[in-house]
Protein backbone atom coordinates (compact mmCIF):
# COMPACT_ATOMS: atom_id res chain seq x y z
CA UNK A 1 0.00 0.00 0.00
CA UNK A 2 1.63 3.19 -1.12
CA UNK A 3 0.47 6.63 -2.20
CA UNK A 4 -0.46 5.40 -5.68
CA UNK A 5 -2.71 2.69 -4.30
CA UNK A 6 -4.29 5.17 -1.93
CA UNK A 7 -5.01 7.58 -4.79
CA UNK A 8 -6.70 4.81 -6.78
CA UNK A 9 -8.75 3.65 -3.80
CA UNK A 10 -9.86 7.17 -2.92
CA UNK A 11 -10.72 7.97 -6.54
CA UNK A 12 -12.63 4.75 -7.09
CA UNK A 13 -14.57 5.17 -3.85
CA UNK A 14 -15.43 8.78 -4.73
CA UNK A 15 -16.64 7.63 -8.16
CA UNK A 16 -18.80 4.81 -6.87
CA UNK A 17 -20.27 6.69 -3.91
CA UNK A 18 -21.00 9.71 -6.07
CA UNK A 19 -22.56 7.64 -8.82
CA UNK A 20 -24.76 5.71 -6.41
CA UNK A 21 -25.91 8.86 -4.65
CA UNK A 22 -26.64 10.47 -8.02
CA UNK A 23 -28.88 7.60 -9.02
CA UNK A 24 -30.50 7.01 -5.63
CA UNK A 25 -31.03 10.61 -4.44
CA UNK A 26 -34.61 11.77 -4.28
CA UNK A 27 -33.89 15.46 -4.66
CA UNK A 28 -32.12 16.59 -7.84
CA UNK A 29 -29.80 18.92 -5.94
CA UNK A 30 -28.37 15.98 -4.02
CA UNK A 31 -28.01 14.10 -7.27
CA UNK A 32 -26.04 17.02 -8.67
CA UNK A 33 -23.74 16.95 -5.65
CA UNK A 34 -23.26 13.22 -6.19
CA UNK A 35 -22.34 13.95 -9.81
CA UNK A 36 -19.81 16.49 -8.56
CA UNK A 37 -18.24 13.87 -6.27
CA UNK A 38 -18.03 11.42 -9.17
CA UNK A 39 -16.38 14.02 -11.35
CA UNK A 40 -13.77 14.79 -8.73
CA UNK A 41 -13.08 11.07 -8.37
CA UNK A 42 -12.70 10.66 -12.13
CA UNK A 43 -10.31 13.62 -12.21
CA UNK A 44 -8.16 12.04 -9.51
CA UNK A 45 -8.10 8.79 -11.48
CA UNK A 46 -7.02 10.78 -14.54
CA UNK A 47 -4.14 12.07 -12.44
CA UNK A 48 -3.32 8.49 -11.49
CA UNK A 49 -3.30 7.58 -15.19
CA UNK A 50 -0.90 10.45 -15.87
CA UNK A 51 -3.43 12.49 -17.83
CA UNK A 52 -2.89 15.81 -16.09
CA UNK A 53 -4.37 17.90 -18.90
CA UNK A 54 -7.56 15.88 -18.94
CA UNK A 55 -7.81 16.05 -15.15
CA UNK A 56 -7.69 19.85 -15.33
CA UNK A 57 -10.20 19.91 -18.20
CA UNK A 58 -12.45 17.55 -16.30
CA UNK A 59 -12.53 19.83 -13.26
CA UNK A 60 -12.92 23.01 -15.32
CA UNK A 61 -15.57 21.80 -17.73
CA UNK A 62 -17.56 19.36 -15.61
CA UNK A 63 -17.29 20.71 -12.09
CA UNK A 64 -17.07 24.31 -13.25
CA UNK A 65 -19.64 24.40 -16.01
CA UNK A 66 -21.85 21.35 -16.32
CA UNK A 67 -22.66 20.85 -12.64
CA UNK A 68 -23.16 24.58 -12.17
CA UNK A 69 -25.54 24.54 -15.13
CA UNK A 70 -27.43 21.66 -13.55
CA UNK A 71 -27.67 23.54 -10.25
CA UNK A 72 -28.86 26.68 -12.06
CA UNK A 73 -31.63 24.76 -13.79
CA UNK A 74 -32.64 22.98 -10.59
CA UNK A 75 -32.84 26.31 -8.78
CA UNK A 76 -34.77 27.83 -11.68
CA UNK A 77 -37.47 25.20 -11.77
CA UNK A 78 -37.58 24.69 -8.02
CA UNK A 79 -35.45 22.43 -5.88
CA UNK A 80 -38.47 20.52 -4.60
CA UNK A 81 -39.24 18.91 -7.95
CA UNK A 82 -38.24 15.46 -6.79
CA UNK A 83 -40.21 13.39 -9.20
CA UNK A 84 -42.96 12.65 -6.70
CA UNK A 85 -45.69 10.22 -7.51
CA UNK A 86 -46.49 10.14 -11.21
CA UNK A 87 -49.73 11.84 -12.10
CA UNK A 88 -50.50 9.64 -15.07
CA UNK A 89 -50.50 6.01 -14.09
CA UNK A 90 -47.33 4.16 -13.27
CA UNK A 91 -44.51 2.77 -15.33
CA UNK A 92 -43.30 0.49 -12.57
CA UNK A 93 -43.36 -2.60 -14.75
CA UNK A 94 -41.25 -1.11 -17.51
CA UNK A 95 -38.85 0.34 -14.94
CA UNK A 96 -38.39 -3.00 -13.23
CA UNK A 97 -37.93 -4.82 -16.54
CA UNK A 98 -35.46 -2.28 -17.90
CA UNK A 99 -33.44 -1.88 -14.72
CA UNK A 100 -33.47 -5.58 -13.93
CA UNK A 101 -32.46 -6.48 -17.47
CA UNK A 102 -29.60 -4.04 -17.36
CA UNK A 103 -28.51 -5.36 -13.95
CA UNK A 104 -28.60 -8.96 -15.19
CA UNK A 105 -26.65 -8.09 -18.33
CA UNK A 106 -23.96 -6.20 -16.45
CA UNK A 107 -23.80 -8.94 -13.81
CA UNK A 108 -23.10 -11.41 -16.60
CA UNK A 109 -20.45 -9.08 -17.95
CA UNK A 110 -18.78 -8.80 -14.57
CA UNK A 111 -18.94 -12.59 -14.19
CA UNK A 112 -17.16 -12.99 -17.53
CA UNK A 113 -14.59 -10.44 -16.41
CA UNK A 114 -14.08 -12.30 -13.14
CA UNK A 115 -13.45 -15.54 -15.03
CA UNK A 116 -10.76 -13.75 -17.03
CA UNK A 117 -7.70 -15.97 -16.64
CA UNK A 118 -5.20 -14.13 -18.79
CA UNK A 119 -2.20 -12.35 -17.41
CA UNK A 120 -3.31 -9.03 -15.92
CA UNK A 121 -1.88 -6.12 -17.86
CA UNK A 122 0.33 -4.07 -15.60
CA UNK A 123 1.13 -0.55 -16.71
CA UNK A 124 4.67 0.15 -17.71
CA UNK A 125 6.36 3.33 -16.60
CA UNK A 126 4.75 6.37 -18.19
CA UNK A 127 6.74 8.18 -20.83
CA UNK A 128 8.09 11.55 -19.80
CA UNK A 129 5.49 14.19 -20.57
CA UNK A 130 2.74 11.64 -21.17
CA UNK A 131 -0.54 13.47 -20.91
CA UNK A 132 0.73 16.88 -19.91
CA UNK A 133 -0.59 20.07 -21.43
CA UNK A 134 2.25 20.51 -23.90
CA UNK A 135 2.04 17.00 -25.33
CA UNK A 136 -1.74 16.84 -25.60
CA UNK A 137 -1.99 20.39 -26.91
CA UNK A 138 0.67 19.75 -29.52
CA UNK A 139 -1.05 16.59 -30.65
CA UNK A 140 -4.38 18.42 -30.70
CA UNK A 141 -3.10 21.16 -32.95
CA UNK A 142 -0.96 18.95 -35.16
CA UNK A 143 -3.11 15.88 -35.72
CA UNK A 144 -6.63 16.88 -34.79
CA UNK A 145 -6.97 20.49 -35.83
CA UNK A 146 -10.05 19.88 -38.01
CA UNK A 147 -11.99 18.00 -35.31
CA UNK A 148 -10.94 20.73 -32.88
CA UNK A 149 -12.39 23.46 -35.11
CA UNK A 150 -15.51 21.35 -35.66
CA UNK A 151 -15.86 21.08 -31.89
CA UNK A 152 -15.84 24.87 -31.63
CA UNK A 153 -18.55 25.01 -34.29
CA UNK A 154 -20.52 22.38 -32.37
CA UNK A 155 -20.29 24.39 -29.17
CA UNK A 156 -21.44 27.58 -30.91
CA UNK A 157 -24.38 25.76 -32.47
CA UNK A 158 -25.22 24.15 -29.13
CA UNK A 159 -25.19 27.51 -27.33
CA UNK A 160 -27.41 29.13 -29.97
CA UNK A 161 -29.72 26.13 -29.98
CA UNK A 162 -29.94 26.13 -26.20
CA UNK A 163 -30.84 29.83 -26.20
CA UNK A 164 -33.43 29.27 -28.91
CA UNK A 165 -35.01 26.33 -27.12
CA UNK A 166 -34.94 27.82 -23.64
CA UNK A 167 -36.32 31.21 -24.70
CA UNK A 168 -39.20 29.89 -26.77
CA UNK A 169 -42.59 30.63 -25.33
CA UNK A 170 -44.83 27.78 -24.38
CA UNK A 171 -47.77 29.33 -26.21
CA UNK A 172 -47.73 31.45 -29.35
CA UNK A 173 -47.98 35.10 -28.63
CA UNK A 174 -51.47 36.49 -29.36
CA UNK A 175 -51.64 38.46 -32.58
CA UNK A 176 -51.45 42.21 -32.04
CA UNK A 177 -54.86 43.80 -32.30
CA UNK A 178 -55.60 45.38 -35.65
CA UNK A 179 -55.32 49.08 -35.22
CA UNK A 180 -54.45 52.24 -36.90
CA UNK A 181 -50.91 51.90 -35.60
CA UNK A 182 -50.31 48.64 -37.41
CA UNK A 183 -51.31 50.07 -40.74
CA UNK A 184 -48.65 52.67 -40.66
CA UNK A 185 -45.90 52.37 -43.17
CA UNK A 186 -43.30 52.51 -40.43
CA UNK A 187 -43.70 51.71 -36.78
CA UNK A 188 -42.48 55.08 -35.72
CA UNK A 189 -40.74 58.15 -36.89
CA UNK A 190 -37.22 57.51 -38.02
CA UNK A 191 -36.05 60.88 -36.87
CA UNK A 192 -37.31 63.10 -34.09
CA UNK A 193 -38.27 65.85 -36.50
CA UNK A 194 -40.64 63.44 -38.27
CA UNK A 195 -42.68 63.07 -35.12
CA UNK A 196 -44.61 66.11 -36.23
CA UNK A 197 -45.36 64.52 -39.61
CA UNK A 198 -46.43 60.91 -39.03
CA UNK A 199 -45.61 58.63 -41.97
CA UNK A 200 -49.06 57.24 -42.30
CA UNK A 201 -51.11 56.12 -45.24
CA UNK A 202 -54.23 56.98 -43.34
CA UNK A 203 -55.43 60.57 -43.61
CA UNK A 204 -54.44 62.50 -40.57
CA UNK A 205 -57.30 63.06 -38.21
Amino acid at each position, binding site marked *: *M*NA*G*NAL*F*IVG*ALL*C*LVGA*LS*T*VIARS*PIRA*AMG*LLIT*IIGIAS*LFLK*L*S*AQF*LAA*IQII*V*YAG*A*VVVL*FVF*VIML*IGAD*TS*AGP*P*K*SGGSVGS*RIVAGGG*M*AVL*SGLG*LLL*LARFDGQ*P*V*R*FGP*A*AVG*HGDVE*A*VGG*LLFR*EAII*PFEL*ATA*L*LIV*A*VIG*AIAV*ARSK*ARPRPAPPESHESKRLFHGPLHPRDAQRPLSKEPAE
Partner: protein
Amino acid sequence: MSALGYVLEHYVVLSALLFTIGAIGFLVRRNVLIQLMSIELMLNAINLLLVAYNRQHGGPMTGQLFAFFIIAVAAAEAAVGLAIILSYYRLKASVHSDEADALKH
Protein backbone atom coordinates in the same frame (compact mmCIF):
# COMPACT_ATOMS: atom_id res chain seq x y z
CA MET B 1 -3.09 -5.83 -3.46
CA SER B 2 -0.09 -3.66 -4.03
CA ALA B 3 -0.97 -3.64 -7.73
CA LEU B 4 -4.24 -1.84 -7.06
CA GLY B 5 -4.46 0.99 -9.54
CA TYR B 6 -1.53 -0.16 -11.64
CA VAL B 7 -3.40 -2.83 -13.57
CA LEU B 8 -5.62 -2.15 -16.56
CA GLU B 9 -8.37 -4.53 -15.42
CA HIS B 10 -9.07 -2.51 -12.28
CA TYR B 11 -9.97 0.47 -14.42
CA VAL B 12 -12.03 -1.70 -16.75
CA VAL B 13 -14.07 -3.04 -13.83
CA LEU B 14 -14.51 0.41 -12.29
CA SER B 15 -15.58 1.86 -15.63
CA ALA B 16 -18.05 -1.00 -16.15
CA LEU B 17 -19.52 -0.42 -12.70
CA LEU B 18 -19.90 3.31 -13.33
CA PHE B 19 -21.48 2.71 -16.73
CA THR B 20 -23.88 0.18 -15.23
CA ILE B 21 -24.91 2.52 -12.44
CA GLY B 22 -25.51 5.26 -15.00
CA ALA B 23 -27.48 3.00 -17.32
CA ILE B 24 -29.68 1.63 -14.55
CA GLY B 25 -30.24 5.15 -13.29
CA PHE B 26 -31.26 6.28 -16.74
CA LEU B 27 -33.67 3.37 -17.14
CA VAL B 28 -35.19 3.36 -13.65
CA ARG B 29 -35.43 7.01 -12.62
CA ARG B 30 -38.21 9.11 -14.07
CA ASN B 31 -36.87 12.56 -13.17
CA VAL B 32 -35.49 14.00 -16.40
CA LEU B 33 -32.79 15.93 -14.52
CA ILE B 34 -31.48 12.75 -12.92
CA GLN B 35 -31.73 10.92 -16.23
CA LEU B 36 -29.50 13.58 -17.79
CA MET B 37 -27.05 13.22 -14.90
CA SER B 38 -27.01 9.46 -15.49
CA ILE B 39 -26.03 10.11 -19.10
CA GLU B 40 -23.15 12.22 -17.82
CA LEU B 41 -22.13 9.33 -15.57
CA MET B 42 -22.00 6.98 -18.55
CA LEU B 43 -19.92 9.45 -20.57
CA ASN B 44 -17.50 9.78 -17.66
CA ALA B 45 -17.16 6.00 -17.42
CA ILE B 46 -16.22 5.82 -21.10
CA ASN B 47 -13.71 8.64 -20.66
CA LEU B 48 -12.05 6.72 -17.83
CA LEU B 49 -11.81 3.61 -20.00
CA LEU B 50 -10.29 5.55 -22.91
CA VAL B 51 -7.67 7.17 -20.71
CA ALA B 52 -6.81 3.85 -19.03
CA TYR B 53 -6.27 2.08 -22.35
CA ASN B 54 -4.26 5.03 -23.55
CA ARG B 55 -2.08 4.76 -20.47
CA GLN B 56 -1.50 1.10 -21.18
CA HIS B 57 -0.56 1.58 -24.83
CA GLY B 58 1.55 4.65 -24.29
CA GLY B 59 2.83 6.24 -27.44
CA PRO B 60 0.55 8.78 -29.11
CA MET B 61 -2.17 10.10 -26.84
CA THR B 62 -5.03 9.46 -29.22
CA GLY B 63 -7.19 8.07 -26.43
CA GLN B 64 -6.82 11.27 -24.45
CA LEU B 65 -7.77 13.25 -27.54
CA PHE B 66 -10.93 11.19 -27.84
CA ALA B 67 -11.69 11.82 -24.17
CA PHE B 68 -11.15 15.54 -24.77
CA PHE B 69 -13.66 15.59 -27.61
CA ILE B 70 -16.12 13.53 -25.57
CA ILE B 71 -15.91 16.15 -22.83
CA ALA B 72 -16.63 18.88 -25.39
CA VAL B 73 -19.61 16.98 -26.80
CA ALA B 74 -20.88 16.24 -23.28
CA ALA B 75 -20.81 19.94 -22.44
CA ALA B 76 -22.84 20.73 -25.58
CA GLU B 77 -25.22 17.91 -24.76
CA ALA B 78 -25.74 19.16 -21.22
CA ALA B 79 -26.47 22.70 -22.44
CA VAL B 80 -29.01 21.60 -25.03
CA GLY B 81 -30.53 18.96 -22.74
CA LEU B 82 -31.02 21.42 -19.90
CA ALA B 83 -32.59 23.92 -22.30
CA ILE B 84 -35.01 21.21 -23.43
CA ILE B 85 -35.78 20.38 -19.78
CA LEU B 86 -36.51 24.06 -19.07
CA SER B 87 -38.79 24.25 -22.07
CA TYR B 88 -40.52 21.02 -21.07
CA TYR B 89 -41.00 22.28 -17.53
CA ARG B 90 -42.62 25.44 -18.88
CA LEU B 91 -44.94 23.34 -20.98
CA LYS B 92 -45.93 20.70 -18.42
CA ALA B 93 -44.91 22.15 -15.04
CA SER B 94 -43.30 18.80 -14.31
CA VAL B 95 -39.97 17.06 -14.62
CA HIS B 96 -41.50 13.62 -14.81
CA SER B 97 -40.50 11.96 -18.06
CA ASP B 98 -43.62 9.80 -18.27
CA GLU B 99 -45.68 12.92 -18.85
CA ALA B 100 -43.81 13.81 -22.04
CA ASP B 101 -46.44 12.21 -24.23
CA ALA B 102 -47.39 15.01 -26.60
CA LEU B 103 -46.35 12.94 -29.62
CA LYS B 104 -47.99 9.76 -28.36
CA HIS B 105 -51.66 10.28 -29.10
